[in-house]
């Protein structure tokens, strides 16, 4: 299931949702991405995340479908927040459950790598020096190529 939302989410609640009534999953992997201080030189007041409604959902669904085709997942979950966030806030959750850990680990990392590269979100830092759009990192482009 995919959620794109302004509100915060609770990791414990999502763990329960991933594993509820499922006695065959031996592994649950949950990744949480947080807002961190990107530059020590600028004082960051917060972050604003913009997205492309319509495409965001479609893009995340396509990523999850690819993960399900490649690995044997019992369940999966993607949550991405948009709007105004503060340093330390949770931004994204990617979860996967499988019978054995290899599938859950690989699927969660795959989904994050592809989300970073293709899901239409854009971050803007609010700093003392004004509003600055975050630039895409080259390491993220390299990350998808290894899959």
């Amino acid at each position, binding site marked *: 299931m995919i959620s794109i939302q302004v509100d915060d989410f609770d990791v414990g609640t999502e763990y329960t949702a991933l594993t509820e009534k499922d006695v065959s999953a031996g592994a649950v992997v949950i990744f949480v991405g947080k807002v961190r201080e990107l530059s020590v030189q600028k004082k960051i007041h917060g972050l604003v995340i913009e997205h492309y409604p319509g*495409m965001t959902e479609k893009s995340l669904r396509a990523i999850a479908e690819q993960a399900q085709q490649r690995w044997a997942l019992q369940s999966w979950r993607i949550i991405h927040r948009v709007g105004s966030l503060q340093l330390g806030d949770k931004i994204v959750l990617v979860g996967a459950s499988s019978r054995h850990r290899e599938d859950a680990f690989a699927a969660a990392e795959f989904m994050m790598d592809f989300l970073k590269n293709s899901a239409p979100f854009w971050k803007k830092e609010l700093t003392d020096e004004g509003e600055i759009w975050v630039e895409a990192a080259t390491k993220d482009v390299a990350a998808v190529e290894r899959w």
Partner: protein
Amino acid sequence: MIKILFFAALREQLGCAEVELVHTKAKTLADVRNQVLDLHPEWREYLANEKLLAAVNHILVRLDHVVNEGDEVAFFPPVTGG
């Protein structure tokens, strides 16, 4: 009619979130972009940026992608989610 959306830093550079091409002979996304630049030559510096990504009907595509009447096109900077 083809709707063209701009997002994030690109939208701010152009000072515009959306344009519509009412009568278009555009066949590919490159044609659409050129037609937009005909209407707004002052946008060339930003819209001709090779690093920009593009989507047609919510799918990432390249500039040679065929565009049809009624399509929704979007141009935007490399994404930074997650």
